[in-house]
């Protein structure tokens, strides 16, 4: 995958981070994707994807608070960067263009 483009799961994770805003850490990110896709999401895959997004400069991270139910371990919060937002818009434009070229999928009847 090229450094400035987004893979399918990367796009899902990045959209979840954008939706959650300041509350974006592993658990709500997994919940958001699971609710939207109706599939179980592996926490390990989310962290690997977030590491990749951070190395591409699409998100930044900061260490947050810990709670007893986490066994005292700190949360890591993620925030989208300007570069990440531009990458999401680019992916959206690409998908919309591709979508509009497939009449069978218009209107969600297929």
């Amino acid at each position, binding site marked *: 995958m090229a450094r400035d483009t987004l893979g399918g799961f990367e796009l899902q994770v990045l959209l979840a981070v954008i939706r959650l805003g300041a509350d974006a850490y592993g658990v709500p990110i997994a919940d958001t994707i699971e609710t939207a896709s109706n599939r179980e999401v592996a*926490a390990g895959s989310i*962290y690997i994807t977030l590491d990749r997004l951070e190395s591409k400069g699409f998100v930044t991270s900061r260490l947050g608070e810990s709670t*007893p139910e986490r066994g005292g371990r700190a949360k890591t919060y993620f925030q989208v960067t300007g570069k990440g937002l531009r990458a999401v818009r680019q992916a959206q434009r690409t998908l919309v263009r591709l979508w509009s070229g497939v009449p069978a999928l218009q209107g969600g009847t297929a």
Partner: protein
Amino acid sequence: MMPRRPPRLADWLLHRLASGPRRHSLVGDVHEQHSRGRSAAWYWRQTVTAILAGIASDLRRHPADMAHALCTGLGAWVLYSMLIVGPAWGLFERVMLDYQWMRRSAVIPWAWLPLELIGGWVVGRTVLRFHRDRLAASLLLLILAETIAELPRLFSLSANAWGYPNYRPQLWWQIANLTAPIVGILMGGLSDQRSSERDSLINDEASTD
């Protein structure tokens, strides 16, 4: 409210073999979801997926780190062989010359196995010390290297033992000789005493909250 305890073995494995600098947050996330009602089977699925996905990601995305980990482990093995195994072999040879009965017995070959086990442990601890963030993939690479190095001898002995039962003790010894360092590598690599102490402290603090 007391947090629910996750499955002990899965938790132990996840804590030691989860990959990356943010593995503590990952373990915390899995704990948090489990304490909110996810099942033990879910915890096991998360553990296995996190470890396997971590290994695949480390091998694919961090080849330089992996090569470094392999060199560190092999370097530790070479150093151990030079400092411990070499002199020990010299001593064993002298004993075998002095006591002819030992040459015919199986004492010497089997007495060699603890040295192999300790050697594996030293390698595992060294990798744990220097490559903690990519431990699972590093240990896997070292075990593969050890297995590949021993395979030709193992195959030739198996072929001999197939037709000549006299070779069977040698074959068993060779299998044990391959297994001992692998067990040692796993014991050394997974003996993360400092983290387990810190974790028990964290859990103590959590349960008093």
